[in-house]
């Protein structure tokens, strides 16, 4: 009989995990600790290694190097059925030949639990599908299947619940609804959730902590706000939301701020928000933080002048401007459509301004295009 004592609880600790497939390194020397009871997201583009990491936690892959602990228990070499870990698969993987009841009861039965009926009914009520017990998976819609897959995993009260892009196949509205429900269930039940996704909005909505992964490594880990407002690398700055990244050189220092020269213009940057250790720095500012005005308007804080509007897109909530700067770089500006700024037109000369603290600085060797959307349309 499988020994999957859910008594082994604790933080999930991955230490120096590496996974190679032949010459290809999917996960590269990755270490991370996921606190018990938190909602943790592994975020990154396709092929970054997040799913491989998840599968190693589940036991469906074995790490080439490294160890995995839950609390004090070493589960690195344990088979999936020996770990107190359950997975919600991307395509739900409901057993087509079993009824919904038997699907949800599957884990309980394997562990020899007695009062199966009661537990299954309780968890079906939790996912709001109480009368579906006798149906078959093929009779359910995508959203319903997803909730049954969740129920099937949760009913076992695992130390860790892994979700592999569970909302990928749902349409937008349903996805939004499920994001809220998943978050609610997690706080209700108190399990540790590890959620793998490539959708940065989803991660920011649901997770307490996000680890952004790229090419097998963690770029940055922290709360959604931390990652968004203080990205450590260009990849994170571009992958979460959008960023304007401009190369510059630190020209002088004054107390707790520095002055950076970008293409002849001067920008102030708080020292504590500058992650660069040399004088070469990439200055970043998010498009929604920028005010766009005609050149004669008085500006406060940082300002960049000499830009010309090259594109205007009305997106309902906001108007998105593409501004071509004198050094031939396009900067993005998002203005909320709250009547504050008159709409500008392509060809209008403009100046951009923003509050100094919003500026962040990255190491000068960063590739300013890392993590930006290329051909991948999500």
């Amino acid at each position: 009989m499988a020994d999957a004592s859910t008594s082994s609880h604790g933080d999930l600790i991955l230490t120096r995990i590496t996974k190679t497939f032949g010459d290809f390194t999917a996960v590269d020397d990755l270490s991370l600790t996921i606190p018990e009871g938190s909602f943790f997201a592994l975020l990154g583009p396709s092929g970054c290694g997040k799913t491989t990491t998840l599968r190693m936690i589940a036991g469906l892959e074995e790490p080439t190097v490294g160890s995995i602990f839950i609390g004090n228990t070493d589960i690195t070499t344990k088979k999936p059925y020996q770990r107190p870990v359950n997975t919600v698969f991307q395509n739900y993987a409901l057993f087509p030949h079993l009824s919904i009841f038997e699907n949800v009861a599957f884990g309980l039965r394997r562990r020899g639990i007695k009062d199966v009926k009661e537990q299954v009914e309780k968890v079906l009520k939790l996912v709001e599908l109480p009368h579906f017990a006798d149906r078959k998976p093929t009779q359910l819609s995508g959203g319903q299947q997803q909730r049954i897959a969740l129920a099937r995993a949760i009913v076992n009260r695992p130390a860790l619940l892994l979700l592999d892009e569970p909302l990928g196949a749902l349409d937008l509205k349903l996805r939004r609804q499920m994001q809220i429900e998943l978050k609610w269930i997690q706080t209700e039940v108190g399990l540790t959730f590890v959620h793998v996704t490539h959708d940065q909005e989803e991660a920011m909505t649901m997770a307490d902590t996000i680890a952004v992964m790229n090419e097998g490594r963690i770029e940055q880990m922290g709360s959604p706000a931390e990652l968004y407002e203080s990205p450590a690398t260009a990849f994170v700055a571009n992958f979460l939301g959008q960023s304007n990244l401009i190369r510059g050189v630190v020209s002088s220092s004054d107390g707790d701020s520095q002055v950076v020269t970008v293409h002849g213009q001067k920008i102030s940057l708080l020292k504590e928000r500058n992650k660069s250790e040399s004088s070469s720095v990439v200055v970043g500012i998010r498009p929604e933080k920028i005010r766009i005005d005609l050149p004669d308007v008085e500006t406060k804080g940082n300002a960049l002048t000499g830009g010309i509007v090259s594109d205007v897109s009305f997106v309902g909530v906001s108007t998105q401007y593409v501004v071509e700067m004198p050094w031939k770089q396009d900067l993005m500006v998002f203005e909320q459509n709250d009547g504050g700024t008159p709409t500008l037109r392509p060809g209008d000369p403009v100046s951009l301004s923003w509050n100094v603290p919003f500026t962040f600085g990255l190491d000068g060797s960063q590739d300013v295009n890392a993590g930006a959307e290329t051909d991948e349309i999500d």
Partner: protein
Amino acid sequence: MNQAPIPTLPFGRKVSRWFGRNLIRIYAVFGFTYLFVPVIYTFAFSFNDAGKSNLTWRGFTFNNWKNPCGAPDVCSALGNSIKIGLLATFTATILGTLIAFALGRHRFRGRSATNLLIFLPMATPEVVLGASLLAMFLAFRINPGFWPTVIAHVMFCISFVVVTVKARIASLDPRLEQAAMDLYANERETFRRVTLPLVMPGIAGAALLAFSLSFDDFIITNFNSGTLVTFPKFVYVSAARGIPAQANVIGSSMFFLALFIVIAGQLVNRKKVR
């Protein structure tokens, strides 16, 4: 007020349009008719009041159906075919399924050699399969008969079972087995509760295929059965002097039985999905 008439195609154009779209359907009707001609003929002549030679129509009778074993040797031939078929199907299905699982779910060395060995019997003419086996039996002083026939049938059915079951295994989402293991089922339980039930339709199909191949086989059987008469052999031998109408009865019954099984299987499948 004055509306222009809605333009319609001239009749000739309409006809040719209809033909163009339905030409292939018309062909299909002819095609299916062609397929069923000998079947209908066999069925019709099973009602012939034939006596010894079922060549010309003498009169309608139910006697053949009431007394299907009336003609000498028909039923013993049928019995032999069924016995051989069941034995061969049972053995070949088991052996073939084991191989299919090895190929579909495991890593091992010699995969291409195995694939070749499975493929070759299907690519070898039945004459060669039958003759070579007979020659070997004779070399070991084993006379052709019941058991050599069973052995030969198992031999040529294995490949078909492997191909059928392997295809079914390949269509099985491996994530279902991973989900089972994730839910505390070890390898054996996963196989018993998830893999096997889902592969079973493929195994059943393979068994049906093996049985029909065995039952209908003539050439290999002819070489290896000696004096034992199977149903196809009986038909072949009596073709010269006239096949008794009872053989038509049996042939038609096989047809209806098989048709029933296939359609029933499809309905059961549809109910499961619903």
